[in-house]
């Protein structure tokens, strides 16, 4: 399918399926790009050359906390707006699966940064988070006087890592489904979230 058809398809379906608002699209893609960057950084930063590790960790923490804020905004948006409905052509199990993946992703958007924040806050290393070098992001207060910080921090680290892999699995399903809708079902669902079709709306 070439670009002309994509626009044509979008035009055809846009009346049936209203697009996400510009706010929702902006939030979706800012968070999406950040999460992909965070996953790549998170999986590789321990193997960075030593002298770049501090920068890598600070960047990961800064971006992760940014995702936390953006996700809170996004969830507030989601709860206060009516989203475009699934097309009638979708089977019930497909709708349920999509819904589960979406809810899972929303949960992870909060759970990943929160477990990361907790593991940093309980880390015996005690490095503060300097948000993109600008200001100190406070540590969670509960862990200041914990006896065995390392055990708690390592546990949060394990959970954080496991959630990251679940997140990767959900992203694969989410992207796979979006591409299937676009290129196999041709139902225009993916275009509802694509920023470059905004003007055609």
């Amino acid at each position, binding site marked *: 399918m070439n670009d002309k058809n994509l626009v044509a398809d979008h035009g055809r379906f846009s009346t049936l399926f209203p697009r996400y608002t510009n706010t929702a699209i902006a939030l979706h893609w800012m968070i999406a790009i950040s999460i992909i960057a965070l996953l790549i950084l998170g999986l590789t930063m321990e193997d960075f050359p030593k002298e770049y590790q501090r920068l890598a960790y600070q960047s990961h923490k800064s971006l992760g906390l940014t995702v936390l804020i953006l996700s809170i905004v996004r969830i507030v948006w989601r709860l206060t707006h009516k989203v475009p409905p699934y097309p009638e052509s979708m089977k019930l199990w497909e709708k349920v699966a999509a819904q589960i993946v979406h809810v899972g992703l929303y949960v992870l958007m909060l759970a990943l940064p929160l477990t990361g924040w907790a593991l940093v806050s309980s880390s015996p290393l*005690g490095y503060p988070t*300097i948000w993109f070098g600008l200001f100190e992001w406070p540590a969670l207060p509960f862990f200041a006087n914990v006896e065995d910080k*390392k055990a708690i921090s390592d546990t949060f680290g394990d959970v954080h890592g496991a959630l990251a892999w679940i997140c990767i699995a959900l992203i694969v399903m989410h992207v796979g489904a979006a591409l299937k809708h676009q290129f196999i079902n041709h139902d225009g669902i993916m275009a509802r979230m694509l920023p470059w079709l905004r003007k055609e709306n």
Partner: protein
Amino acid sequence: MVKKRKLRSLVSMKQNCYCLIFALTLCVAGVSPALADTSGAAQAKTIEAPKDNTADVAANWTIDPDRSSITFGGSESGNKFQGKIEKYEAAIVFDPENLEKTAVLLTFDMYTAKTGNASYDGALRGAEWLNIDRFPTAQFKLGSIVRQSGGGQAGDVQSADYTVTGDFTLAGVTKQISFPAHISITDRYQAEARASFVIPRLDYNIGRQADGDGTIVSQDIAVNVAIVAH
């Protein structure tokens, strides 16, 4: 600011070492040999007031904070860091001719220990590292000072190497440390002291839980002391 504290021992020292200090100050000040040939007692009488003054200067020193620095450094994840302790108080009694009377008490305001890197400085203050909220000061109390070499004069400068031993209290742990120091008295109003030594942080349990084997932060922290005093 550096506070000047007169130690009580100074009074007796002044009396005991009256002639010695006077002779020293004459030499350091570069007084002409002709004047030095004059009888000590007679000379002392004629310049009574300056004598008292110079004896005080030679024994009881006040640090010049603008020209002194106390720095520390090490490496973290392969990157070098360097920090400085901005504020400290010092009570120093030192006379190269009366080393047994030497008394040094340095008290460091650890809140002013900074590397300039916000991440490092935040960690430094934390419970696992210097635990500054609990131990806001570090202290060095001199035990003994022994001259190793030098002690002579070259022109107006009297300069010598010493071995300094004393109790160092850091993060609530006190250890006896010993290190070489070079002290020169450039004239009767100014002394310069330099010392470089290493503090093994694990001796003070600093970062033991976080990094007990020096994987991240070097175990040896280099300390450089450069003091100018009057």
